[in-house]
């Protein structure tokens, strides 16, 4: 009886100790959110209490697969091992020696003999597995009960720690995204505030390198005809050879596959070898309107980790915002350049207008008028009145082939030559001979000038002229008849040392001399028809003008009216002389 009492007492004490240890355990478990601490507690407590040599905690990855999250008394390598367990256990059970589940066989082989399922909200979240007691004694029903309670106590802590770990992970990923957004925001702001290409390239490089821990980065932009320019290279050795960007092959390769491309998957052997030797890992083509305009040359990551899809996406996003900035900078530079050119042209126009006479000469018995409407800012038409002396006035009209700045330069050359020569008292033929040689020497074969030069003797009212291939000026007489002034020779600039002949014609009261360039006769209407010489004749004969100015204006208005909406393509110059 006494013995029985003692035994009961002992058993009672043992239960008390069990409860005490469960209480301690629950305190420890509840105070910790760190999974390692919870797992250690869960393992060491029964191992100590029941003198068990080995144990492990498995956590469910999904319904049937478990991962060994903690192991004691087992080889190091078993941690993180994944196990497949087909069976379901509702209460502690001995480990079957033979099983269809490879997971259970694995555990048995490692000397684990008891399996305690861990449930949370009726869902199984893992197992506590234990080896034999060192004493070899079997687990008593009390002990099994104790282990079941232990597993249940641990379950909510494990669940909490798992949720916390997940939460931390989500938070960290969120923080990372925020960091990326910050980078994107910052780089966009920074890029928008500069038009300096080097600064844009550097900003991009450092943002990308910092964001992804990339050791080397370079940025190449595509130039015309498959050439490339290296805007920046960071972290590459000083002797790195980037000449591969200067080839059509390189850019065509990117055209063919305009997305981030790992170097090892490049089809071009030579390029792959070159890039690999430079430790380049990735080419990121940058596109604007579906055209590859630049390429980021991306080196290793310091961590050695691979580039994932979201990394590639971020790279392309950052790169493309830099490309937009580069494009803006280019457009801005072009606009500036255009503005500068336009300003220069305006100045050139001003200069050219000064080369033409400001006012017609005022000589009694004669009435003069002149007009020049350049098609572009500057043109190749020329007319002039030059008072040589009391007796003599030189008048001239000319048309340089071509248009715009080149024509205007040659026109200035002609004007200067003529002004230098008219005072030399040479015959007109000699003057034209010399000017032809000058123009010929100064121009290529495809540049020439049609030129008409006349000298008016204001006393004898005789007009001497040389026509070097210009549209024949028309001399209208009072009786309605018209004479074309054709004497002369070849257009200026075709050949050197060409002889010229001169014509002389007396002027009568009421005679009207009309000189013009082909901008008048070759003006077209919307139907594509030309104004023609006959058009000039018709206007003059029909209008019956009484001043030189009136003749110019009538002709001008007629040409403008004739052209209508058709685009004007040439300079218009008209010069008239009315004998009164």
């Amino acid at each position, binding site marked *: 009886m006494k013995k029985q009492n003692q035994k009961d007492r002992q058993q009672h004490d043992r239960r008390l100790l069990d409860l005490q240890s469960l209480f301690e355990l629950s305190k420890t478990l509840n105070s910790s959110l760190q999974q390692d601490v919870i797992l250690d507690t869960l393992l060491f407590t029964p191992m100590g209490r029941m003198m068990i040599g080995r144990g492990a905690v498995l956590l469910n990855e999904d319904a049937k697969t478990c991962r060994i999250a903690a192991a004691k008394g087992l080889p190091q390598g078993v941690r993180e091992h994944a196990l497949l367990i087909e069976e379901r256990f509702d209460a502690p059970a001995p480990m079957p020696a033979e099983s269809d589940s490879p997971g259970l066989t694995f555990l048995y082989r490692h000397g684990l003999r008891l399996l305690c399922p861990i449930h949370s909200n009726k869902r199984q979240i893992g197992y506590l597995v234990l080896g034999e007691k060192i004493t070899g004694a079997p687990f008593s029903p009390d002990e099994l009960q104790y282990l079941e309670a232990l597993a249940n106590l641990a379950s909510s802590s494990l669940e909490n720690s798992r949720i916390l770990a997940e939460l931390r992970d989500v938070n*960290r990923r969120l*923080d*990372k995204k925020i*960091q990326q957004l*910050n*980078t994107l925001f*910052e*780089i966009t702001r*920074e890029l928008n505030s500069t038009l300096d290409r080097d600064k844009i390239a*550097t*900003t991009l*490089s*450092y*943002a*990308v*390198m*910092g*964001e*992804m*821990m*990339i*050791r*080397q980065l370079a940025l190449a932009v595509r130039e015309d005809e498959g050439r490339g320019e290296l805007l920046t290279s*960071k*972290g590459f050795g000083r002797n790195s050879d980037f000449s591969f960007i200067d080839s059509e092959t390189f850019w065509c390769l990117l055209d063919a596959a305009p997305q981030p491309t790992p170097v090892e998957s490049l089809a071009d052997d030579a390029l792959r070898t070159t890039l690999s030797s430079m430790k380049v890992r990735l080419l990121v083509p940058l596109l604007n309107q579906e055209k590859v305009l630049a390429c980021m040359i991306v080196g290793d990551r*310091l*961590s050695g980790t691979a580039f994932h899809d979201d990394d590639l996406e971020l790279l392309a996003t950052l790169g493309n915002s830099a490309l937009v900035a580069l494009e803006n900078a280019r457009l801005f530079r072009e606009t500036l350049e255009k503005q500068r050119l336009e300003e220069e042209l305006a100045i050139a126009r001003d200069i050219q207008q000064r080369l033409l006479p400001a006012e017609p000469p005022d000589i009694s018995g004669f009435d003069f008028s002149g007009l020049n409407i350049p098609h572009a800012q500057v043109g190749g038409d020329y007319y002039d009145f030059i008072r040589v002396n009391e007796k003599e006035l030189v008048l001239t009209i000319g048309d340089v082939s071509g248009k715009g700045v080149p024509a205007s330069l040659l026109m200035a050359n002609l004007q200067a030559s003529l002004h230098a020569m008219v005072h030399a008292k040479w015959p007109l033929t000699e003057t034209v001979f010399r000017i032809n040689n000058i123009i010929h020497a100064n121009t290529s074969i495809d540049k020439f000038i049609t030129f008409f030069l006349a000298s008016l003797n204001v006393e004898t009212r005789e007009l001497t002229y040389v026509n070097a291939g210009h549209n024949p000026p028309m001399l209208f007489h009072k009786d309605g008849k018209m004479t074309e002034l054709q004497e002369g020779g070849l257009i200026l600039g075709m050949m050197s040392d060409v002889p010229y002949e001169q014509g002389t014609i007396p002027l009568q009261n009421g005679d009207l001399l009309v000189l013009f360039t082909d901008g008048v006769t070759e003006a077209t209407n919307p139907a594509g028809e030309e104004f023609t010489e006959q058009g000039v004749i018709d206007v003059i004969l029909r209008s019956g003008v009484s001043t030189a100015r009136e003749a110019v204006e009538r002709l001008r208005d007629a040409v403008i009216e004739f052209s209508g909406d058709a685009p004007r393509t040439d300079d218009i110059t008209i010069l008239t002389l009315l004998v009164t």
Partner: protein
Amino acid sequence: MNGFEVAQHNSEDGITILRLKGFLDAHTAGDLEAALQKCIDEKKFRIVVNFEELNYISSAGLGVFMGFIEDVRENGGDIKMTSMTEKIFHVFDLLGFPALYDILKTDDEAVERFAQTEKE
């Protein structure tokens, strides 16, 4: 504007200490680049960067360190970082720098770390 300054200080044991102050972002990254480039040009490869007075750092700022680390380590040196505030460390941590850079509490620890590697 948010300014940025780098102060260079050469310790007796041939270690260069750069003290960063203010805002380090894409805008000011060039200043840090110049300071590090100067160290390389002067063949000072043992560099300690002190972040105590740095208020802000962006990825572009971190990028500058990436641009030089290879060169420095190839020449037997290192860039060690010290005295980061929690906020600054958080950015470095997020982008994975602690695994690859020595990030220490004080300049003295960094100098000591250099001395240890020297012995080995």
